[in-house]
């Protein structure tokens, strides 16, 4: 079996969960991966300081799309406070595959977008 392109990664890539747009939404974000021109955006609906619902949109590689899809299921219901503290390790662990330095940017793109939308912090990860 392939190390990186596990079945569940390809499954999330081909049938991403929570993709599309969400109208109306309370928060939104959009990021490019300068490496490859990929684009990932998010719409977030907030209720009681928690993510009530969210949708990703854009295009990208299997790693970035699968990351966004997998993360989307965990992010729903999280408090904005928790989200603002999520680190790279959280995402990498969740993904469950060995990520090289080059592909790290792909894997973290969705978290970057979400953090940007939630806390306006677009310098992460430095």
């Amino acid at each position: 079996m392939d190390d990186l392109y596990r079945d569940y990664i390809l499954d999330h890539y081909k049938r991403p969960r929570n993709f599309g747009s969400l109208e109306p939404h309370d928060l939104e974000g959009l990021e490019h991966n300068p490496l490859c021109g990929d684009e990932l955006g998010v719409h977030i609906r907030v209720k009681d300081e928690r993510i009530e619902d969210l949708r990703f949109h854009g295009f990208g590689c299997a790693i970035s799309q699968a990351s966004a899809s997998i993360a989307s299921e965990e992010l729903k219901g999280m408090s904005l406070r928790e989200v603002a503290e999520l680190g790279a390790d959280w995402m990498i662990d969740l993904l469950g595959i060995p990520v090289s330095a080059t592909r790290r940017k792909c894997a973290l793109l969705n978290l970057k977008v979400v953090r940007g939308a939630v806390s306006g912090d677009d310098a992460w990860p430095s």
Partner: protein
Amino acid sequence: MPPVAESSLGVKADFPIFSRRFDGRELIYLDSAATSQKPAVVIEALAEHLRGHNANVHRGVYALAREADAAYDEARRRVASFTNATGGETIFTKNVTEAINLVAYSWGRAHVGKGDAVLITQMEHHANIVPWQVLCRERGAQLRYLEVDERGELSLEALDQELARGDVRLVAFTHVSNVLGTINPVAEISARARAAGAVSLIDGAQAVPHMPVDVDAIGADFYAWTGHKALGPTGVGVLHGRREILEGMEPFLTGGDMIASVDFYSATWNALPAKFEAGTPMVAEAVALGAAVDYLSGLGMERVRAHERELTAYMLERLAQVPGLRSVGPLDADSRGGLVSFTVEGIHPHDVAELVDRGGVCIRAGHHCAQPLMRCLGVGATARASVGVYSEASDIDALIDALLAGREVFGL
């Protein structure tokens, strides 16, 4: 289909990197458009200069300094004559990006203003786009794009229409597209620009390493290229420029070596080419680039081109056999340089590159620093395979095998 006659120049052994093994496998390098590998003679020229002839240039009276001066001057001569650019001046920069910025800052800020236009093409590399965006914004000028047609080519009629508007001060365009592979009719474009009173600048980054280029015959006002793609080391680029224009320009970078005299409040400039080479130049790198162009001349640029043309034809043919693969750019190898960009249905280009890497094959994926072109092509990114003098038909076979294996990983 069997590899054709010229499909190998038989020079891989000249390039030390090919004796490395990666997880026991040979290096299959199809990313020469990003940077070329270096023959031992170039690496040795670089090392030997630093080992035995290193001194600062232009100023010393001792024997070692005279050697360094002579080596730097000789490198300039070799580099200029390699592309027959001896009719103008040859300036060393750190890469082609600096060369284009030099023209944008020094020529552009003095000659482009409100009501003027800069004309570039949709197939430019960011290095030949962003400096003009910045210039036009600063000077209140208009940036316009010459369209790329569905074959991946520019239209001379469209060019004439643009020039007929009478406001174009500069036409900047690539000799060979780093995405489409298209070889542009650079002499025609330069001549039309000149006839319309516009200055012309050619980005030759993807041309000089791969085909005979005659800068004087092409007749552009500026012709720029970059050493690391032409078997040279990193850290050195080249700007050929028409003397009268360079003489009329203010300097770009200022400091040592580029002055005639410095007063407390003003300075006068040194003669060309020193005027545009502020500070200690990349002497060892220029010397090594001299060795690189000698090596290329030794192979013969006609032969290099014939070899790469054959490989490109072979690559186009083999790629067409991969299901779901769509390549961009002109259809026949005569109209293009040694690279093919493509997408594979169902696999993002980034994953394509990662998957073929498992077969030991190095290709590039992304926007190739040509995002406007990507938009025109309606894709976010492509994968790109590109060849060099050391490439062989078997490299392409390995690419095809790796692509087919990659599709299987993705269940296609």
